[in-house]
């Protein structure tokens, strides 16, 4: 298996400091307007002859990453609705719209999180990020 390499540009060194001092965004913001200063700064980052390119590899474990749909990305299946009056999800696939947890057999309902739900961890510290 080949390592997954990804190129990142890391700008550093005395040349970068010098150029940034000469063409600082603040300077151009004051003189010529922020859009122009931003463009020049962008060009410096792209073409800076003094900057040093470095490579950073993807983390080892990403070799084994499987594609999935996270709960944050997945949108609810339209066959399910949250019923505020009972504080539960209902399944619309049956005429009596039963609570989803009562509606299905062994496989259970599939609302939105099925991809990573079973056995997934909760990460409370960073779950909002």
């Amino acid at each position, binding site marked *: 298996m080949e390592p997954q390499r990804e190129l990142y540009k890391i700008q550093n060194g005395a040349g970068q400091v010098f150029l940034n001092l000469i063409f600082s965004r603040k300077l151009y913001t004051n003189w010529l307007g922020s859009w122009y200063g931003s463009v020049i700064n962008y060009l410096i980052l792209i073409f800076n002859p003094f900057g040093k390119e470095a490579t950073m590899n*993807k983390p080892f474990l990403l070799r084994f990453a499987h594609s999935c749909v996270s709960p944050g990305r997945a949108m609810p299946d339209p066959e399910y609705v949250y019923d505020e009056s009972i504080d539960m999800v209902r399944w619309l696939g049956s005429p009596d719209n039963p609570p989803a947890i009562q509606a299905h057999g062994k496989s259970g309902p599939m609302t939105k999180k099925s991809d990573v739900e079973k056995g997934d961890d909760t*990460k409370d510290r960073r779950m909002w990020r």
Partner: protein
Amino acid sequence: MILILSNKWDLTVDFVVAELRSRGSNFIRFNTEDLASGRATICLPDLRILVSKHGRVHDLTRDINVIWYRRPGKPFDDIPTGERPSLATQNFVNDQWYSWLEAIQLIPNITWINHPKANDAIENKARQLLIASKLGFEIPETVITNDKNDAIRLAQEHDNYLIAKALYSPLIEEPDEDFFVFTNIINDVDLLREEEMRVSPTIFQQALVPKIDYRVTVVGQRVFAVRIERLNEKPLQTDWRMEKDDLRFLPCNLPPDVDILCQRYVDECDLLFGAIDLVQHEEKFFFLEINPNGEWGWLQKPNNIPIAETLCDLLIFYDTKDGA
């Protein structure tokens, strides 16, 4: 009153809601992604936390005795990704609400299942393993490292056969696609490339094979164990979550000493709920990890394991124990 903090698509909560409703218990479910649609106010210096639901304002500082902290939703969860504001704006809004919710921890004399800080502390896998070992569990020999040579040394001690897994959340959310890192077998140390290893630490452990996997759900003093088997009778090789559609979960009793260790572990970590992963290898039970807020809805219904009922017992006990 019992307060449930989660999101509206958390079906595991629905099991508890149905049970609390059938018992006529006094509870309120807040799906926190909806907080922005109502009133949410913290008043100081005399702490009051006011939240509206269905047009009624609840004073959490006065009404609540126990909080079941499940999976709080985020403000933009119900909005398709393409229609959400910039990531920076999302992060800003999320952070404001996260901080607001965190203030609920200021309410005195509340029982949490589990307290977010206790969850947070025990999410650290090094801590999990160290506590397990100190309590008397067997644990797999482990290195957590970004150094290829340390991993190779461990491999050499175990027939060049290791497992590798993530030290923290195994979910990678790229702008257009998500990825999940399960536990993997490493049987060729040439896979361990220096330049990839250095980037971030990885957990390497002796591979316990052959093995039998167990998921042990501890609720208060009760322990619910299931043995995890493949439907085709072949032994599981690595991470059972990768084969979740071909599995069966058989309720079982653990040996009494292991059962007690699971209870002690959850207690030691200041938790009232925990989902512990064990493996049986060469007649010994090894502790792998604990998910302090692990999923269990998939165990409840098809296997008739009364986790929701037991959780309700616990919630009601803490809601009423001081004559509330």
